[in-house]
């Protein structure tokens, strides 16, 4: 019997600390473990006893790359619990700042972290020697996303302006209009980006995922919708726990999610796209078509194209939202705490980020549960790894290792996020 173990001790170009162990016995892949050894930071535990007013600032620190996903999910849960109705223009501004988060996070991943894999570089800096324009374009897109975060949120990492009921301060129409040209330029850059990434050499590989994403009446989902899956789930966000569960595995500080009775599922750009293709404007659908992506894409390596398409859509949305903006009469609606439970769920760049909080009468948090996208995808990553490696068992370790790392990066995993959330369902062996 021949046994091979392939290890990647420290995954590069991912957010957070993770590693990979692959076991091959007699030419068969027996195990693929994505080890998340990011030290746990216990957010759900220390949120207990804190006031709902502190929530947005604290949960932002779960992740520096997608703070809005945490802030807005938590804020939605507060508003759900305390029955706060927000001004439609405030909702529009939330979508706008979230477009900023998508643009900067996706641009970072697509150009700086993922593209080097396809073109054979260790990083974007080396890649810039031959592909300077492409790297510049990526940085310019990232900057455009950050400009939205900065204006609406005060700064790009851990914005300070979001609060329950709305914003501490909303921008004036003039301030927003100043960004309009930048967003129009960004839209053109995003089109070029789609064309560039769709020319990459993609490994021939497909898997049959259960896609899970939000679905909204009109919009391509970002801040709102029902939780829908390609296998027939269609529930309000408050019913998440009826359909999904989490399990702790020995090799990871992150919990792994699954659909009850079915198993692994996929969240993120590929899932959003598959479930909401018809919600994209005609122009984006056509570009997707010419980039070789049908209404459903099952090749995870092509997720880079879908991210680029989502950048384009977010830029379009930003232009549209800025044009339609009218300053709300007040920046935030009043909030009256009461004893209640509330839920929040939005589409983080990496997929749905789900929150549940239980509040005491005075608005202090009794219990918190946050399910970030990376933990939901973890089983799916491992299944991809097994399938990818199975096609390469005859190859040298290095070739397998490289392809596996690339497979993990398809997910743009945010390991810092994945390692901090509360488990309520208890499984004991």
């Amino acid at each position, binding site marked *: 019997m021949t046994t091979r173990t392939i290890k990647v001790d420290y995954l590069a170009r991912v957010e957070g600390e993770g590693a990979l162990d692959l076991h091959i016995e007699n030419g068969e892949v027996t195990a693929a473990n994505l080890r998340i050894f990011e*030290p746990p930071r216990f957010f*759900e535990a220390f949120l207990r006893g804190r006031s709902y007013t502190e929530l947005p600032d604290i949960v932002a620190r779960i992740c520096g790359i997608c703070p809005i996903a945490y802030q807005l999910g938590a804020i939605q849960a507060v508003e759900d619990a305390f029955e706060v109705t927000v001004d439609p223009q405030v909702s529009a501004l939330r979508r706008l700042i979230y477009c900023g988060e998508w643009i900067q996070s996706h641009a970072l991943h697509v150009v700086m972290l993922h593209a080097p894999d396809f073109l054979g570089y260790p990083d974007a800096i080396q890649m810039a020697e031959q592909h300077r324009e492409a790297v510049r374009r990526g*940085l310019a897109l990232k900057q455009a996303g950050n400009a939205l975060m900065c204006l609406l949120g005060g700064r790009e990492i851990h914005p300070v302006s979001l609060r329950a009921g709305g914003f501490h301060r909303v921008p004036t129409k003039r301030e927003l209009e100043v960004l309009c040209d930048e967003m129009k330029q960004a839209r053109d850059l995003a089109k070029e980006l789609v064309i560039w990434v769709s020319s990459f050499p993609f490994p021939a590989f497909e898997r049959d995922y259960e896609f899970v994403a939000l679905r909204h009446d009109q919009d391509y989902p970002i801040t709102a919708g029902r939780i829908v899956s390609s296998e027939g789930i269609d529930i309000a966000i408050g019913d998440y726990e009826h359909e999904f569960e989490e399990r702790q595995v020995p090799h990871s500080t992150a919990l792994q999610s699954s659909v009850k009775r079915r198993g692994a599922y996929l969240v993120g750009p590929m899932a959003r796209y598959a479930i909401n293709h018809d919600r994209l404007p005609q122009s984006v659908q056509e570009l997707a078509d010419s980039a070789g992506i049908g209404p459903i894409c099952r090749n995870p390596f092509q997720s880079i194209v879908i991210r680029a398409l989502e950048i384009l859509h977010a830029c379009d949305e930003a232009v549209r939202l800025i044009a339609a903006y009218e300053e709300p009469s007040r920046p935030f609606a009043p909030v009256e705490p009461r004893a209640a439970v509330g839920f929040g769920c939005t589409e983080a760049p990496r997929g749905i980020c789900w929150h549940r909080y239980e509040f005491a009468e005075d608005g202090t948090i009794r219990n918190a549960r946050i399910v970030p996208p990376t933990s939901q995808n973890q089983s799916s990553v491992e299944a991809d790894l097994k399938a990818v490696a199975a096609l390469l068992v005859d190859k040298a370790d290095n070739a397998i290792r490289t392809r596996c790392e690339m497979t993990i990066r398809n997910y743009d995993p945010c390991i810092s996020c994945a390692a901090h959330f509360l488990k309520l369902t208890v499984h004991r062996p």
Partner: protein
Amino acid sequence: MANFLRLAVWKFASCDGCQLTLLDCEDELLALAEAVDLAYFPEASSKMAQGPYDLSLVEGSITTAHDAQRIRDVRAQSKHVVTIGACATSGGIQALRNFADVGDFVAAVYARPDYIDTLETSTPISAHVTVDFELQGCPVDKRQLLEVIGAFLTNRKPVIPEYSVCFECKRRGNICVMVKGEPCLGPVTHAGCGAICPAYRRACYGCFGPMEAPNLPALSEEWRQMGAAKGQIRDVLRTFYGWSDPFRRESNAHDN
């Protein structure tokens, strides 16, 4: 790249935000990469070259025995060690465990606490090794970060003001939120952000940590007169810089 100064970026327990600040220097990143050898920066590159390094930027706090060892290795390989951010400089938000029983925290979060290997505390880098400079902020400010890197690469002292956010507020022309009766941490908080919160019509919550020699008892007295309860003062101090000496001392004075 033998003649280039070798830069390394390390991550410990953190949210990645301070490293991201470096990547958020969109206008300067390529120039920086041409001026130095980015020898080790796993968040951005698979290169991961061996030490020694001229400058190590360290993000995140120490929360595991393994990390306590790893930071000693980083120190041994680095000519200069600079911590970036609240986590690395004061233990960060995860230092809230230091005020509680970490066993309770683990049990609250994980069904199998035995799989989890963690220290009882989250401590700053300086509690483990000698640090050459500490840059505050959660997250650090871009301009300050570039200033610190530039200073170490050219062998001079970084020019980072030690005064409070209030000075920046005045410079930005903000209306003081305390005047409106909102308890603000600006008077004791280290400058660097450019007074973002007051510019966005809210009170500073101290995310740049204590300024040099802050007078916390005087500020809490002011807060009390504005109607802040003991628990509120304790909680606001125990957030991103709760384990820094001045904030910890004052928060303990307001613990029941």
